[in-house]
Each structure stands twice: as structure tokens, then as C-alpha cells.
């Protein structure tokens, strides 16, 4: 009886050997920490950007549109990240 176990291809130039995403295990605390770090960084950047937009671009229609677009996307991104972390944990 021949025992044959097919060897599955590991992709083009698999430099990490048999590592796959399914085997990655990150503690939930790390993700919470990363989320907090990103919130702080993006928060500081947002304050700086708003300062510049209000001080130098107040009343400019383009600046108002940019403020809305930037804020909406940041808000939804952070919301999605929070949902992912809660779901992961």
C-alpha cells in the first residue's frame, strides 16, 4: 500500500516557509494597544490639520469639503477597527 500525502504549493517564493495567516495568533491586548496608539496619533494629526484649516483656510469651500471628507473617513475607519478588535477578542 502506497501512502501518498500530496504536498501543496506554498506560493511564489515562499520565504517564510509554511507560515500562513491562519496560524498567526496575536493577543487581544496587543490589538487594543495598537488601536489606542493609532487613535492618539490620528487624534494629534487631526488637531494639527484642523488648526491649519481653520486658521488659514477658514471659509474656503474646498477646505470645508476636505474637512468633512477627512473626518468621515477617519470616524468610520476607527469605528471599523474597534468593531474588529471587539470581534477578535
Amino acid at each position, binding site marked *: 500500500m502506497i501512502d501518498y500525502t500530496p504536498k*501543496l*504549493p*506554498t*506560493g*511564489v*517564493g*515562499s*520565504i*517564510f*516557509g*509554511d*507560515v*500562513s*495567516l*491562519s496560524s*498567526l495568533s*496575536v493577543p487581544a491586548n496587543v*490589538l487594543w494597544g*495598537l*488601536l489606542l496608539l*493609532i487613535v492618539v*496619533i*490620528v487624534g494629534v*494629526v*487631526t488637531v*494639527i*490639520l484642523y488648526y*491649519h*484649516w*481653520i*486658521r*488659514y*483656510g*477658514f471659509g474656503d469651500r*474646498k*477646505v470645508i469639503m*476636505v474637512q468633512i471628507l*477627512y473626518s468621515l*473617513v*477617519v470616524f468610520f*475607519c*476607527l469605528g*471599523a*477597527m474597534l468593531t*474588529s*478588535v471587539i*470581534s*477578535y477578542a
Partner: protein
Amino acid sequence: MPRLPLEPGEEIIMTCHKHWLAYVLNTFVLSILLLLPYIAYRTLGFATDVTLSDKTMDLVTFLYLGWFIILWAYFFIAWTNIYLDEWIVTDRRIIDIDQTGLFHRSVSDFRIEKIQNIMVKEVGFVAHMLGYGTIIVETAGERIKLEFDTLPDPGKVRDLISECHDKCLANLTNNTHNLEARELVTGD
């Protein structure tokens, strides 16, 4: 809230910002960076998983969104630096605002009547097709040069500055004649 201190009676004629092409290079580079995780995933041998578990999908979503939001913030920092770089042409001055970084801003102004030379440069096929170029204004006295690159429709801006320059000189001449006439009459 006034952005700039204007003189009494001074009017803003035109505000010039950079051509949209100035934003394109930043956008292109950031788009490549945005796709980088996906390219790495496909080429570095991680793409062996036929289906990812829910937990792994949450992790991937979280990491990718984190990467995206950082690039998004960086894009708007670059956009702000480019957008706040502007020329303001009033009926008396040209105000050159140079925003080289978020915390690096320089404002210079030049009297329009002191302008000696205005030059417009549109170099290359792309510049001609898209209608942008560089405008260089030289003033008298210490031969100070004002330059604004990637300006849309530089010819129109040059014509506007020339018109304002002629009006300023005409006003100055009229004022001088009026002053001389008054001196003759009053004997002062």
C-alpha cells in the same frame, strides 16, 4: 476671522493655488503604499489559505485599516502643505505664502507698482497640455524675485498682474499731479 492683514481699502483680485497635478505624485505614491500589504500577501507565500477564519479576517481587517488610516492622515498633511501654498493678488500687492511644512510658513508681500518684469514659463508637453507653468516676478530695488511654480493658467495671472500694475502706476501719477497742483495753488 481674516486670514491676512489687508490695508484699508485693499481688495483681493485673485487667489492662486497650485495646479491639481501637484497633488498627483503624492496620491500615486500613497496608492502604491496602500496596495503594498496586498502585494506582499500574494507574493510572499502567505496566499496558501483558501479560506480565512473569522478571527483571522478580523485581524487582517484591523491591520489593514490601521495602515489605511495612517496613509489617509499623511495624504491630508501633504494636501494641506500644497494647498496652503498660494499667491494672493490684490489691487496693491502680491502676497506670496510659502507653506513648506506644517510648521513652516513664510509670507512675503511686494508692492505691485515696484514690479519690473513678469515672466511665464511653460516647459514640456505635459505643461502645455494641462495648462500649468511657473510665473516669475522681478521687483525693482534689490531685484527681488518672486516665483510660483505649478500654477494653473499662468498667462491669465500675468495679464491680471500687468493690469493691476498699470492701474497702480496711473493712480500714482494722478496723485502726484494732484499734489503738485495743490502745492502751486497754496504756495507750499
